[in-house]
Structures are given as C-alpha cells and as structure tokens.
C-alpha cells in the first residue's frame, strides 16, 4: 500500500495524537447535541399526542363502559385534567428523573414492556444490517465496471426488490419456505431459524438501495486519478476494488446504513405482524392508537437514543474510513 494514497498519509504516526483528540471532541459535541435531540423528540411526541383527535380518557375507556367513579379515578391518576403546561412540565420532570411510569393500557411498568420487546427487535435489526451490508457489498463489487447491460440488469433487479411491498414479500417467503418447503418456522421468534425469513424480508429493500448507492460510489471512485496510480504500481483488480475503491464508496453508504438501522427499530411493524414476532414496532403501533402516552414516549426515547448512538457510530466510522474528515473535526 505504501504512501500512495492521501488517506494513508493523513494517518501517519506523527499526527495520530491530535487526531485522537479530535475524535474525543467530536464525540463530546455529539453527546451534547443529543440531549437537544432527545428533548425535541420528547416534546414533539407530547404535542402530537395532544393534537391527535379524541380525548385520552375517551380513547382509553373505549374498551368498555365504566362507572363514573372509575373514569374519574383514571383521569385523576394520569393527570389528564390538568392544564396542558402543567401536564407538560410534570411529564418532562418524570422523564428527567427516569420515571416512565405504567402503561395506561397494558397496566405494566413501561420499561418492563420495552425490555420484553427490545431484544427481539435489536436482534432482527442486527441480522438485517449484517445481511444488508454483505449482500450490497457483494452486489456492488460484482456489478461495478462490468458491461453496461450487466449493470442495468443489477439496477433493474434492485428497483424491482425496492418496489416489493414488505408484507407481500414476507407472505411470499412464508408460503414458499415455511408452509410449502417446511424449511423455516412461520411463528416463534426466539429460534435462529425463525430469524431467517423476517431478516430476508426486511433486508431486501435496504440491501437493494444500498447496493445501488454503493455501485454509483464505486463507479465514481474508479474514475479517480489514484486508481490509475495504483494500477500503474501493478495492483491486482480485486485488491484495487477491495482496498482502495471500496473505501471511497463506503462513505455515503455508512450514513445510509445508520439511518436504515434507526428506522428499523420502530419501523419493522409489518414484518413483526406477518411473522408474529415480538417487537417495538407493534408495541408502538398499538400505543399510538390507544393514546398510551407513557409507552409512546418510551418508544420514542429508545428510538431517539438509538439514532443518536448510530449517528455517533457513523461519525466514528467515517473518521476511520476517511482521514480527510479528521481535519474537519478540529
């Protein structure tokens, strides 16, 4: 590899100390900003739930007719009759103290419920990301710099996959691989075999998108002068793509993956339903429909925290992948 590439130079031993300091500063600045993000998310949730039609008490009690005494008790206990500013401040105070309380509808401590649903969600997000990365990198590397019609073929396949509705793909996978071939279970999320189909259904869209973005990046990087230099030094085609070109193309992909991971945490509802999986998405869906504020807030916070952590991770990864960004950090 030697000192041909700028990225290598930038990471030269003499400058690594300052670079590490920049990284620490980057993380600190990000952390401070994250608090603002979390406050924003929490406030937006409060406002949106208030704006939703229907009073919380009515929606909560839609499940049956209760005596006025019970209704009054529920309203008093949840503070639903307090003026909005009071409700908002009480609500912020509780969150600041880490008191998320009990779900209005599930009647259990919110964190118990989150803790019960989160592991399955995280597992699915992790396998989905892994599959997305592996498949898109393979597809990207295989398709780049081939004849134009090969690239078009890949692009067409990707568009097709992106256009597939996830629930339809899920049902199709279930029908073929579970109901007909009996390879994988249709229900029961705990076993590794049970993860396969939901992961494929969930990763298909993101993998196709990322593969497309990656190919564009690779194509652009292949035009860069350093490719000519590297080739002139006699590097093999595979090594060129893997070590040099891919590194350039990975930058936009990293950002994209961070966003995908964040959105999967609360956004995998349909796959969770089709595959009867436990998950945060289903929890969030029913909580919003029931105006179950404590649960909605907790889900929003979990998702926001995940986004913040992912953003920081993406920044660190970018820092590792592209030394040019290290200067910008100062």
């Amino acid at each position: 590899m030697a000192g041909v590439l700028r990225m290598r130079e930038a990471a030269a031993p003499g400058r690594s100390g300052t670079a590490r300091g920049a990284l620490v500063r980057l993380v600190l600045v990000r952390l401070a900003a994250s608090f603002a993000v979390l406050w924003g998310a929490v406030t937006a949730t409060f406002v949106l739930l208030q704006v939703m039609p229907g009073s919380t008490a009515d929606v909560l009690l839609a499940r049956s007719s209760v005596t006025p005494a019970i209704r009054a008790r529920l309203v008093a206990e949840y503070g639903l009759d307090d003026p909005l500013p009071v409700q908002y401040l009480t609500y912020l105070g509780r969150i600041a103290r880490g008191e998320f309380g009990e779900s209005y509808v599930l009647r259990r401590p919110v964190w118990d419920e989150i803790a019960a649903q989160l592991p399955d969600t995280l597992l699915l997000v992790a396998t989905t990301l892994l599959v997305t990365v592996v498949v898109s990198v393979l597809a990207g590397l295989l398709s780049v710099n081939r004849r134009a019609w090969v690239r078009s073929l890949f692009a067409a396949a990707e568009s097709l996959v992106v256009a597939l509705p996830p629930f339809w793909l899920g049902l199709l996978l279930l029908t073929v691989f579970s109901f007909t071939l009996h390879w994988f279970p249709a229900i029961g999320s705990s076993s590794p075999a049970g993860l396969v189909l939901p992961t494929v259904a969930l990763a298909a869209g993101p993998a196709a998108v990322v593969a497309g973005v990656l190919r564009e990046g690779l194509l652009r990087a292949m035009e860069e002068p350093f490719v000519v230099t590297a080739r002139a030094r006699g590097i093999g085609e595979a090594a060129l793509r893997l070590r040099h070109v891919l590194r350039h193309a990975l930058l936009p992909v990293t950002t994209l993956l961070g966003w995908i991971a964040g959105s999967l945490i609360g956004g995998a509802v349909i796959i969770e339903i089709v595959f009867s999986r436990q998950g945060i998405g289903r929890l969030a869906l029913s909580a919003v429909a029931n105006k179950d504020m404590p649960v909605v807030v907790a889900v929003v916070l979990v998702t926001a925290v995940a986004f913040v952590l992912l953003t920081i991770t993406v920044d660190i990864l970018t820092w590792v992948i592209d030394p040019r960004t290290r200067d910008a950090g100062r």
Partner: protein
Amino acid sequence: MGAALRPATTTPAAWAGAVLLLALVAACSPGTAGTAGSGTGDASPRAGGTLRLAVEKEPECLDPHQSPTESARLLTRPIVDSLVYQDPQGKFHPWLAREWKVSADKLTYTFRLREGVTFTDGQRFDAAAVVANLDHVVDPKTKSLLAGSLLAAYRSSKALDPLTAEVTLKRPDSGFLAALAQPNLGIESPITLKGPASKLCAVVVGTGPFKSETGFTSQKGIDYVRNPAYAWAPEGTKSGPVPLDRIEVTVVPDNSARLGALTSGQVDAVTGLAPASVGTLKSTPGFTLHTTRFPGANYSYWPNTEKGPLSDVNVRRALRAGVDWRQIVKNVYFGVYDGAQGPLSASTPGFDGSLAPAYGHDPAEANRLLDQAGWTGRDAAGYRTKDGKRLTLRHMWSDPSVSNLAVQIQAAAKRLGVEIVEENLDGGTFVNRLLAGDYELIDTSFSAPGPDVLRVLFSAENIPTPERGISNNMARYDDPRTEDALKRALDAASQSEQFGVYAEVQRRITEDAAVLPIYSPLSVVAARDGVRDVRFNVDGSPDLSGVWLAS
C-alpha cells in the same frame, strides 16, 4: 368480531378501529351459544399431548378482573373457575359453588361452596377467597373496566363460615348469576390479588384445569400445563381427568400466517379465521372446522334514532326492507356467515325467532315508506330529496375490514334513492363524533352470552355522550316503554320470566327498526382432524378444557 376478512392490521387507523370494535364487543354479561358438532363419535379421550393453538388477538392485560377483552376471557378460562357454570344453552350448574339460594327480595345470594378445592399455588379455596375476589373487582384501585357493567348492582359480600359466602346487591339483578359465570368474575388466588396489579396482567393463579406459571407474554402468547389436582369440573359437563398435558398458545395476528401455520402442521388449531380462509379449509382434507355463532347482538348497522333522517321510523324501516341484507352477506362472505334474523344472534339464550319475517326483503314496501316519509323528490343523481335536500346518510367506521360489505350496502341503498356516504375515520375522531351523536349509521357487532346485552345496547342510560363517555347505545334509542321493560327484566324472578320480558324488548326494537341487523359473526376453531372434542363456552369462545388429541 365484526372483523370478517380482516387483513393484517396495517395502519394505525385500522388498529384503532380494531381496538374500539374489540372494546364494544367485549363488555357485558352472559347467556348461550349453540355448540357445533366436533366430529368425535369415537372412543374415550386419549390422555396426554400438547395442543398448539394460534390465536388472532391478545389481551392488553391477562387479568380477567381488569381486562374486558374477549381474548382475556379465552386465555384465562383454562386457569380460573367460577362459582357457577352456565352451559351454552344458558342453564346454570354448580361449579365452585355446590348450591345457592336467592332471598325473596332478590337482594341476597347465599353460596354453599365446594370443599377440598385448592388453588394451584397451594392456597385453599374458601368463602374468604370469594369475598376477596369480588371486592377486588369493584375496588377502584383495580381500575377494572368491567366492574361498572358486571357488578353494577353489587353492594358487599361476607363469609358466613369457611364454606358459605353471602353476596348482597343494591338492587335486583337477574343477570347476576350469568355475570358470576364469566371468567371475568373467575376466582383467583387471594394472595395474588394483594400483589401488584401489573403482575396479574401476566400471571393469573386460579383453581382451574390448567395453570401457567410463566404467564402471558405480550406479542408472544402463553403456555399452560395440566393441573394434576383438578377434580372439580362443573356439573353437567364431561368430567374425568383433563386430557391434555399442555397447551401452547401463540399470538399470530396475520390471518394468512395463521392459516399457513395450520395447514403446514406448525400448529394444531387456530382461531379467528377470515371467511375466505374458512372457505379454503372447508375443501382441504385433514382439517375440521368447529364453529358456533357468537351469541349477543348481530353485526349490525346502528341508525341514529335521535337526529337526522333516521330519526324518522319510516326511513329506518324502509332501509331495513329495501336492502337485501342476506343476499349481500352471502355474496361478501362466501356463504360462511348467516344473515341476521333479529336484533340478537340466533344462538343467544332468549332469542325470539318469531320476529324473523320482519327482517325480510321488500323493496316495494321500502319505496312506499320513503314516499310516505316525504322523500318524494329526485335529484339529478337519482337520489331522493325532501324540500330540496338529498337523503344522505353518513356511515362512520374505523375498521377497514368491513369495506367490501359497506360498498355493497351503499350500492343497494342507491337503488332505493338513498345516498350512504362512507367515512373512514381515525380512532380519536370516531370517538368524538360518536359522543356528539354526529353520524347517521355506525356498524359493529356485540357478542355477549345472553339477552341482557339488549340493555347495554338500547337503554337510554347507555347513550354515548361527552359527559358519560363511550357507551354502547349507538342507535341513541330512547323509548320509555322499552326502558320500563328493561327494568322489569332486571327484576325477573326466573330465567323464563326474564326471557319473556326480553322477547317484548326484541319486539319493540323490531317495530321501531332501532337496529339494522346484518349477519351473525362466527366463532371459528379450525383444527387438524386429530384434535377432538372442541366445544364452545356460553360466550362463544372455545372451551379448551375437554380437548384431546387422537393423533
């Protein structure tokens, strides 16, 4: 249950609708269900084995004292026994109470309890346990969503001796025994009632044929094991040891996934199949359909009798006669559902079958009634008008699964010159408009095990208003003579007297066309052929306690 053809519930609005529907379907008190044959015929039950069951819905909270949902009843019936047992025909039998006496003023019930019954946590069942349970349901701290309806008349209870419990009511309530027979007033271990209410939402301990120590996990399900000590099945049911060793219930919300899991042998039985899937299974060898009509109110259109065009009884009668409801039901639901024959489903104890002719199709009569009501003009689109105003009815709904049906009804109404405007709303807006009475038609079914449901649906006390909150008289029907009959029904000294009064109520409601009944929802258990003796409880939910596996 209005939810025929319910697809994967994929939108928040759909979810809200489903929840609300569930809610409306859920409250109330007991009566009867017709039991479908379960294709046994052969031999005595084979003991042992695990039944794997996939269900479509889950309770928010397992504890039947707190949660009014149909799924909480289904999932706790194997765990909790009741003082009295009500068979699917509506008759009462001894269960945890060996016998009972009602005082002449119908205010005091004295229960002699069965001896030697223990909870699965080792506690003894006695009169103090009965008192603790009833007090727990009415305790405001329990925030029971049921106490208001099931134990509305309850004053207090006390233990006269370890095996005698006395319950005092505030006013006579002929539905009290039926309420006691529901899992919602099932007897739980008193020690667990003192613990946190949140724990009861996962783990319920009773005296029933099964126990579940790990309890219910939301979005997943619940596993039961046989209670080896169980020897107090209700009288009049098949007694003897409980056949199954285990039951594993998984929540599988998607209809296609449930059907596929069954046909591919991943589960032994499923509940809540959509009509199209029921049709598919009928022609699939190796599987048996066990069905019963849900007792209670049919899936119906509820006309706003308080204001708007439908406050005119002639317009309501015209709509009832002018739309061929039965043909539409046949077309939309593949012949799986039966058309309605009255306000109540035919499987409800106390159902009056003599009123069926009033629900026949007669378009000529419908047009005559509309002319008589003054809707004689016609506008450019062919709709009837009066004083230049079009005859428009706003049908408000929030459950998309019924849209096929709604479209057919809309088309049939158009042939009469009546415009139905379909309004698909989010849950919150739906609730606001319901409370304000700002609609002409609402649709829902309301399953309940007896004719007491008529009070829930037609008493003026249950008209939803902003002050009262959600209530179930969606027709906003307010008729003094009906009100008087509903009071007499509560006072009835015997079940036959009670049924007589409720027959009168059904007649009044039919005369006033206070409801447009459409079809009787079905409780469906689809199982592989090896699953035997699938029966149904009085509320239409499947009874798992007698099920056995022939293979």
